[in-house]
């Protein structure tokens, strides 16, 4: 694994916008950054990232199987009691998942370590599946990369495959916070994948979802919502005005309700309990667990519910440093061993390993000047060389 500095394409912004990647810059700073790329060997991809991603997916499924029949686990995850049976039915009924992203600490040498699992509302799919691939093709064309260069990236194909399997010809509604450019871009991309899978689609803001007197969710034209992709966290939906009506809804959701378990940072200590010393896990404990003392006075403290690094704090010698502000933490925290992110040319690096349609299928690389990955952390392309 190497960070290779290179010249950016002078017209990459126009190219990005031409494919709908409009959120390539944040506050005037590049989010997409091709002034360097990361080079991996095929062995690093297959042995260190792809295989652990498949194994972690299985481990997570074992965890869900256990959790839905264990009130103690659901309570530790702070999942509201009224939703326990509903989540269990979702799992036992086989509600399908489309995708997720495991975030790893990896430096090209040791085992990749799971930092968190973005199981419910992963973003960065468009830049991973489309624009990163276009970069590879053009990098080869311009001889920046050898002809034999490759990329861990079949996310696009897997998403289409996933929609074919899930959709079964039904109309798909997609919803989220459309005023957020990143969310709108992600939804538009997933909508396109669904259309390529043959589905009819409709997009609507999450607050435009209607509920009939009979408790059925409908779109703005009052069409019943049979199949709904939501880029909106389960923990938010459950606690909002319509939350209680989820229990009687006939709508099928993507991601499914059982992902409410896996999108919770509480899975980090639970996985560590179930698979102690697993090479791809870091020691982790619930904040109020006496066993957390094993981590000493230095660790990473994460809210059970958190996104984009919000409210994540580095605790060093008992003192919190580098805490990111945000609205999360009311439901509790976990502590995870502080395994400092590797630095390449002074940048902290996190890898995102994608899993879609039942297959590990892609890689995204994020860089930041700070050790906590945030929504502004830059996305760099990668290539497999050698």
């Amino acid at each position, binding site marked *: 694994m190497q960070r290779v500095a290179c010249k950016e394409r002078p017209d990459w912004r126009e190219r990005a916008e031409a*494919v709908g990647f409009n959120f390539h810059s944040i506050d005037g700073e590049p989010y997409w950054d091709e002034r360097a790329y990361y080079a991996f060997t095929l062995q690093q991809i297959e042995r260190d990232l792809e295989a652990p991603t498949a194994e972690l997916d299985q481990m997570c499924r074992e965890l869900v199987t256990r959790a839905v029949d264990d009130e103690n686990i659901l309570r530790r995850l702070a999942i509201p009691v009224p939703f326990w049976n509903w989540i269990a039915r979702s799992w036992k009924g086989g509600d399908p998942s489309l995708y997720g992203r495991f975030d790893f600490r990896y430096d090209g040498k040791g085992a990749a370590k799971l930092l968190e699992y973005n199981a419910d509302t992963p973003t960065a799919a468009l830049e991973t599946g489309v624009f990163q691939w276009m970069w590879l093709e053009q990098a080869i064309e311009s001889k920046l990369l050898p002809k034999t260069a490759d990329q861990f990236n079949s996310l696009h194909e897997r998403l289409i495959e996933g929609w074919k399997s899930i959709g079964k010809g039904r109309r798909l509604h997609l919803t989220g*916070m459309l005023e957020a450019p*990143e969310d709108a871009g992600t939804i538009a991309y997933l909508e*396109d994948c669904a259309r*390529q899978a043959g589905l009819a689609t409709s997009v609507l803001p999450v607050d*435009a*979802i209607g509920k009939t007197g009979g408790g059925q969710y409908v779109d703005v034209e009052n069409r019943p919502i049979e199949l709904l992709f939501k880029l909106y966290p389960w923990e938010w939906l459950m606690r909002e*005005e319509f939350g209680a009506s989820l229990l009687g809804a006939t709508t099928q959701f993507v991601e499914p309700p059982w992902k409410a378990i896996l999108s919770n940072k509480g899975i980090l200590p639970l996985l560590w309990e179930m698979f102690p010393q697993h090479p791809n896990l870091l020691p982790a404990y619930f904040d109020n667990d006496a066993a957390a003392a094993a981590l000493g006075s230095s660790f990473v403290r994460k809210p059970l519910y958190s996104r984009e690094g919000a409210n994540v704090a580095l605790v060093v010698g008992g003192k919190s440093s580098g805490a990111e502000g945000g609205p999360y933490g009311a439901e509790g925290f976990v502590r995870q061993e502080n395994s400092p992110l590797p630095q390449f040319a002074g940048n902290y690096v996190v890898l995102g390993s994608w899993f879609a349609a039942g297959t590990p299928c892609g890689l995204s690389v994020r860089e930041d000047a700070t050790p906590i990955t945030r929504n502004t952390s830059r996305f760099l392309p990668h290539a497999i060389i050698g």
Partner: protein
Amino acid sequence: MKRSSQVALLLLGVTGVGASGLSLSMKKPDDCVAPPAAGAAAPQSPAPGAIAPQTLAPGAPAVLLPPCPPQRRSAWTTSNRTNWSRSNFSSSSRQSGVRTSTVPTSRSGSSSRSTTRSGFGSTGRSVSSHSSGS
């Protein structure tokens, strides 16, 4: 993964609804023998979609072939991402936001009942500086 030299993807030039015409065209295996997987103790089945190791039909003359160079697995197929284009944003199927709290239900034979809205989204609005994605 993979833009494989073994796999050429023929993308049918279609976009939008029904554009499911991805087609894989596999080149014939080169004249070589797939090497066994490292550490493999027994013959393994090829991965789904992978090119099967060379096998000889009964009675066929044995031919010694050189080992193949490492191959990308065909599961890592390349595709033409130009199939995704901004034009897809302009789909007429997209709907604009509606925040009205009550509109009459006009379908499903329930016109006498009302539809309420804005029951989802309050958390997102309250944390609007943070993406709801991750």
